[in-house]
């Protein structure tokens, strides 16, 4: 099977997955206690008023009609209107998306940039102080609840030493670049100050995880016969390590990264809650609390889609790194 067909097949599966997400969320909505009307109508509203509001929002139609209406609108790119504020759900979601993407990308980039060298050093200097330090860090990193880490960072670096803001996002990266283009670099500095603690909070788990994977992968590879053989052929040690061993190590690392996107987003949800970061995570929690279903659905669809897209990309990358992979 060619790469093109492979990607096509995965894309079709992806559409199925997203349809599954939509359906699951839609069903959840009808079995979840806590009527959205509760939030729109006052506490002491009469049943008649509640019915009026339900009719206005189309909540009185049969379930399957609402379902197909929703699917039909979704295909046209319409996610409906927020129950609470009456504004377009998609506009709300896409307004929040950049904050979450920034946070996730910065956390991932930092994690990858730190963890792979750390893992390699740890493996090549096994049982040396550097290895112990890296091992201890990565063990602590995968064992620390990230919300607690965030709170402790705030306690020490913000409350005690006043080095970073305790929360919020001052401006977006794009805005910061805009100011840079006008010759004002301060925007980027402010942006960096605000994103530092949330990114550390979110990225620590992944840094630790990839460090562990890289280390154990490298140890495996370095012990394999082909590595011994290439060494015996007299190739420089660095070439052996980085060209051959690391390349093979990265294959499982990439797979895990793709599968961990869900936990990256889960981590972003709670990180955003800790830092009042105005992203999708806080939006989804608020929407769940308010039973604002169009927003909940929209957020989960966006999250599900990004998961599917990233995993297709990961599979393609996987095939690229490891040409022996059979597309199946």
């Amino acid at each position: 099977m060619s790469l093109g067909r492979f990607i096509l097949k995965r894309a079709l599966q992806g559409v199925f997955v997203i349809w599954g997400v939509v359906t699951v969320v839609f069903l959840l909505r009808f079995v979840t206690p806590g009527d959205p009307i509760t939030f729109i109508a006052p506490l002491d509203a009469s049943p008649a008023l509640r019915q009026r509001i339900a009719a206005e929002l189309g909540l009185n139609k049969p379930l399957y009609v609402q379902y197909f209406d929703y699917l039909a609108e979704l295909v046209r790119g319409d996610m409906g209107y927020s129950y609470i504020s009456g504004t377009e759900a998609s506009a709300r979601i896409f307004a929040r998306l950049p904050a979450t993407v920034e946070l996730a990308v910065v956390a991932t980039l930092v994690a990858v940039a730190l963890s792979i060298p750390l893992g390699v050093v740890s493996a090549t200097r096994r049982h040396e102080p550097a290895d112990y330090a890296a091992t201890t860090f990565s063990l602590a990193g995968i064992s620390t609840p990230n919300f607690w880490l965030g709170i402790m960072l705030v306690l020490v670096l913000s409350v005690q030493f006043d080095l970073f803001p305790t929360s919020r996002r001052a401006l977006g990266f794009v805005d910061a670049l805009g100011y840079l283009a006008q010759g004002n670099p301060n925007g980027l500095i402010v942006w960096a100050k605000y994103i530092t603690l949330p990114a550390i909070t979110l990225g620590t788990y992944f840094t630790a995880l990839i460090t562990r994977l890289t280390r154990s992968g490298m140890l495996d590879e370095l012990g394999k016969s082909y590595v011994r053989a290439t060494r015996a052929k007299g190739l420089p040690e660095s070439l052996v390590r980085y060209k051959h061993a690391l390349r093979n190590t990265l294959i499982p690392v990439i797979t895990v990264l793709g599968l961990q996107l869900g936990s990256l987003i889960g981590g972003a949800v709670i990180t955003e809650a800790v830092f009042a970061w105005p992203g999708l995570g806080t939006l989804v929690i608020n929407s769940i609390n308010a039973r604002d279903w169009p927003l909940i659905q929209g957020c989960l669809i966006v999250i599900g889609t990004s998961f599917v897209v990233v995993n297709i990309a990961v599979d393609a990358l996987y095939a690229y790194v490891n040409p022996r992979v059979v597309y199946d």
Partner: protein
Amino acid sequence: MADDRQSRISRRRYLSLVGSAAAAASVAGCAGGDEIQTPSGDGNGGGNGSGNGGEFAVTITQGQLDSGLDPHDHRETTTDIVLMQAYEGTLDRDAEGKVVPSLAEEYEQVDDTTLRLFVRDGVKFHSGDELTPEDVAFSINRIVNNDVGGLASPQKDQLAGVTEATVVDGERAVDVVSDGVNPVLVSLLASYGDVMQKSWVEGRQKNQINSEVNGTGPFKLERYTEDEEVVYTKFEEYWRDPAAVDRVTLNAAAESSTRVNQLVSGETDIVVNVPPQEVGRINNQGNARVEAVPSTRIIYNAMRYDVEPFSSREFRRAMNYAIDLETIVKEVLSDFADATSQPTLEGFVGYNPDTDIYPYDPDEAERLVEESGHAGASIELHTPVGRYLKDLEIAQAVVGYINELPNVDATVNQRDFGTLAGELTTGSIEDKPHFYLIGWGNETFDASQTLIPLLTSEGVLTSWSNEEFDDLVAQSNAETDENAREQLLRQANQVAHDEAPWIFLNRQYSVYGASGRIEWTPRRDESIKAYSISPK
């Protein structure tokens, strides 16, 4: 964590941050300053942040922002505070809660069911058009009548009893007609019933009404960024003197510590709901102060009269004796609250000054539990989290005290507010938890708006039914003589105290942080009017 709507810093604030990036974490300076769309590219960073051309700009930070800008399509204080800068009602209240004229210059009771409002002359909408009696009648009808103005307003019951409003022929007046004697109507109109322009509403879609503003108030909308900020500028043609404030920005931060950070770093001028443990941080800062005022909100634990053990009057009274309310108010709420003895708050029409707070008397509580025949009962207190000041801690403290009785076992059940509210609002008592903590705000300063919905047999939110109480409230509702009516309401409050359908807890205080550069006094009805702010 509930209600975690985020705020984003305004562009204007951002600019002053950029201007002093090195100290971004502890930016000082005031929140004044004009908006600059582009910072200067001269390397100075477009420094800004101090007053610009003498403009007086003020920022108000709440826990959350509005849920859309239609003044008739919401029921939250947060949205109300956003809209009260721009929309006005026919009557208003002064800071003490006294009814004062607003868009209606005067009112008179024409007969038992009709109140006539005389509409002020020379009032302009932000659109530039003159206010007419038709606009007033339309606005009231839009609230009370589902067929007017394309809206089933959730505020219908805030104008309880009103059936319609009609323009009086040949006079600049509107008759507000009720379905019977309506002794609280003036009080209701002073708190509710924002006036909109009829032609403006009719010419707009729902989402436009929710994102544009056209009122008669002292500020007109400059910019609306949903979830982020609402910016108003002074309306120069306001019918009273123009405001001292040139520009008002309203934004939100869900976490109280975030709001306090914003205040002490000079990013905002007024923050709401400062928890007691953060008060010291504001006071120590020097450039900000704490302002507190008793609110119109009561926090209570309802006990359902139709289920054991709460069906027993002795048991319900025992619960009131079991808790040390004074200590809860002092230690949990740091005295930023008052203990209550009855459903109605002090200062309200119908408050009974002779009713005493239940004393802390665990022995009496234990005895009453034995007497009730429910010794050994297990009870579970349902509480929302983060909805009211220290709600979860109050619930835990109440349960802690009840557990100290040897013959009752109590636990806390933290509930998502949505689910809990859903159970409370079905209109059927069977759906409600047996024992729950909830708060109720009543901005009318009249007992009836608490007693009727929360405690009469027919009340939408009731967990109780008592004939004597129902009779007293019904009589007060039909009574046109103010003194007689007040006496009836006082008696009803005494009955509620004695029968103890609730554990009476605290009257919540509104605690604000205010920057040193503004002159402002908080109000009991939780409203924040930028019109009343002036530079210090």
